[in-house]
């Protein structure tokens, strides 16, 4: 029954969008996302996908088209990378504030200046506070499956979902991918039925100016002010984990693959040293954990799949027995530390997890990261931790000539 094909991450994402029968696609070319957009253009022009493809003049307009098309009730898709995502920044907020179930593939790439076309996760991580759900994929199978799951999550919660995967490392690397059966996807993901649409039959003024306080409508019913709307978005995101997990389980029930809900683990049963990361770097960390085990270090990996909402409850459970934690990430919150490291530390506050944590910044702007180097960096981090310097010592910049 399986239909395994060899394909790149971008092709997998395009397959996912096609299987979801997206009705409006809008995108603007940017490396390394481009081949995904090309693939969907081909599908629309060739009649394989019945959708409107709007070839806009910028990423700002690409997401705008998705916002408006979603507002009239269409299932929409866009994708971008790096500066394209940053150019969408205003519209990312607008999409989440509008509570629209848009799915966006972010093919992760570094951010200028200076220009880099190569992979890191600074683009998506720097957009974590825009109100989107962010899911980081570790391989091409997870990309296709996550795009399909993303629509079901987004349409259940009225929250947009960003499916993130590493540029080149996944987007341009061929891997075997089991392509889900179209009819089974139709059952899993029925057509989008929005609760409200913009239509002349029911004239409304959507997203006008709203005051800080609540105001009565024409019938005298008190309606939300700005803060109530913001609370509702936050409340939905705080509770979104349940939906994300149950959608993953429902998907596994039909297609036989569960990518782990909020996070996944590798050799964690008896792990004392936990390597934590997101996306393909986390996959690399599993090989590093094997190498460390060969050297007698009881290492395991926790891969953060969903970065927003942050899996606070899950990390507290998974890291409970950790003796030391090393967080590898392809982003930096300048002037502090990696964003994942900060968020993890915050999640552990006043919990059972009291293990020292060291942060390793790796692979920025596409600098190569080998599993062996992750293993070595873990050993070096353990030295820092054992010397009691985990708290005062700055992050390690892997393979970076820092002069230290």
């Amino acid at each position, binding site marked *: 029954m399986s239909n395994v094909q060899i394909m790149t991450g971008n092709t997998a994402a395009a397959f996912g969008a096609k299987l979801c029968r997206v*009705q*409006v696609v*809008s995108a603007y070319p940017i490396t390394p996302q481009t081949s995904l957009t090309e693939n969907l253009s081909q599908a629309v022009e060739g009649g394989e996908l019945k*959708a*409107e493809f*709007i*070839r*806009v*003049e*910028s990423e*700002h*307009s690409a997401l*705008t*088209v*998705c*916002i*408006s*098309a*979603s*507002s*009239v*009730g*269409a299932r*929409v898709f866009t994708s971008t990378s790096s500066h394209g995502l940053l150019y969408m920044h*205003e*519209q990312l907020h*607008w999409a989440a504030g509008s509570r629209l179930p848009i799915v966006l593939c972010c093919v992760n790439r570094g951010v200028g200046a200076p220009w880099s076309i190569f992979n890191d996760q600074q683009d998506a991580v720097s957009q974590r506070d825009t109100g989107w759900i962010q899911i980081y994929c570790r391989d091409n199978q997870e990309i296709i499956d996550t795009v399909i799951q993303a629509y079901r999550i987004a349409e259940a919660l009225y929250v947009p979902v960003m499916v993130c995967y590493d540029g080149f490392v996944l987007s341009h690397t061929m891997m075997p991918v089991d392509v889900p059966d179209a009819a089974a996807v139709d059952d899993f993901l029925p057509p989008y039925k929005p609760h409200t649409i*913009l*239509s*002349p039959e*029911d*004239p*409304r*003024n*959507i*997203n*006008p*100016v*709203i*005051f800080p306080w609540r*105001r*009565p*409508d*024409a019938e005298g019913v008190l*309606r939300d002010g700005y803060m109530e709307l913001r609370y509702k978005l936050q409340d939905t995101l705080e509770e979104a984990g349940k939906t994300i997990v149950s959608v993953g389980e429902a998907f596994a029930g039909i297609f036989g693959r569960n990518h782990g809900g909020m996070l996944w683990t590798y050799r964690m049963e008896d792990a004392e040293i936990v390597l934590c990361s997101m996306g393909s770097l986390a996959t690399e960390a599993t090989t590093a954990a094997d190498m460390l085990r060969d050297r007698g270090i009881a290492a395991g990996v926790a891969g953060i799949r969903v970065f927003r909402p942050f899996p606070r409850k899950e990390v507290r459970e998974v890291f409970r027995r950790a003796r030391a934690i090393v967080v590898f990430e392809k982003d930096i919150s300048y002037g502090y530390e990696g964003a994942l490291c900060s968020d993890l530390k915050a999640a552990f506050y006043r919990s059972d997890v009291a293990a020292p944590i060291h942060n390793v910044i790796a692979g920025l702007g596409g600098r190569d990261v080998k599993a062996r180097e992750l293993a070595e960096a873990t050993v070096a981090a353990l030295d820092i931790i054992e010397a009691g310097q985990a708290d005062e010592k700055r992050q390690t910049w892997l393979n970076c000539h820092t002069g230290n």
Partner: protein
Amino acid sequence: MIERLFKVNTEEYMLPGNRACQGCGLSLAYRYALKALRENTILTIPASCLTVLHGLYPTTSVAIPCLNCTFASTAASASGIVAGLSALNRSGITVVAVAGDGGTYDIGIQALSGAAERGTDFIFVCYDNEGYMNTGTQRSSATPMGALTTTTPLLTKQQNKKDMLKIMEAHDLPYLATTSPSYPIDLYDKFVKAKRIKGSRYLQISAPCPPGWGYPPKDTVKIGRLAVETGMVVLCEIEDGKFRLTGRSRSLAERGNRLPVSNYVERQGRFRKISEEQLSNLQRWVDNKWNEYLRRAEGS
């Protein structure tokens, strides 16, 4: 004229009690524009005076559905509505984007050019009150030479107004027109015509603004008329590339009785610091434009 007024749709889509300023030129124009567009219309508007006119959540003064969008995105927002409706096989709905001069000439020009180049089936309406009036009268590229704004507070604007009509005409649109609330039947007719045409249509409304331009609210119609009678605003339409003067501008051209720009300038506080040199520059700029329009009108 009285006979022609009878044909105007008697339905009102702008409800009483909107939040526009007293004597707002946009408010007058919008009422007639919506009458011409009628029910099967979806609007999209960016941050602007019109957002204020449409009202505060959860009430609105406009009985036509409207999607608010960000400042730079108006025409792309219209593209998305058109695409969504098409994907859902919904036909017979006119999609209309309405932005101010800031949202058209300045921050909105990229999305507008993109949507126009794609031939998006929509009407883009620019109501041009010649500045960022919603934020309190700052300079835009539509502000005329010699006008005081809060960002040209001492020296006045040093440059002439951008010719947006020409820029839009360069997109080979099927229909473009300029209008003024002081000539509501001319405006109504152009909106009716625009609604019937397919493709990207561009309509510009010259919208006098009492607080921004510095004249009493009761004089809005008079100021709008003077703008046309002095040639500061020219009423025209370009249909499939064919240029035509319309209404008062056409009669001015026929009779040759265009007034000097000073008649328009002297009634507005925003021009109180205009220099003699700027005024003659402004007159020359208007003369050149007018002569170009006359040549085009004769050639057609």
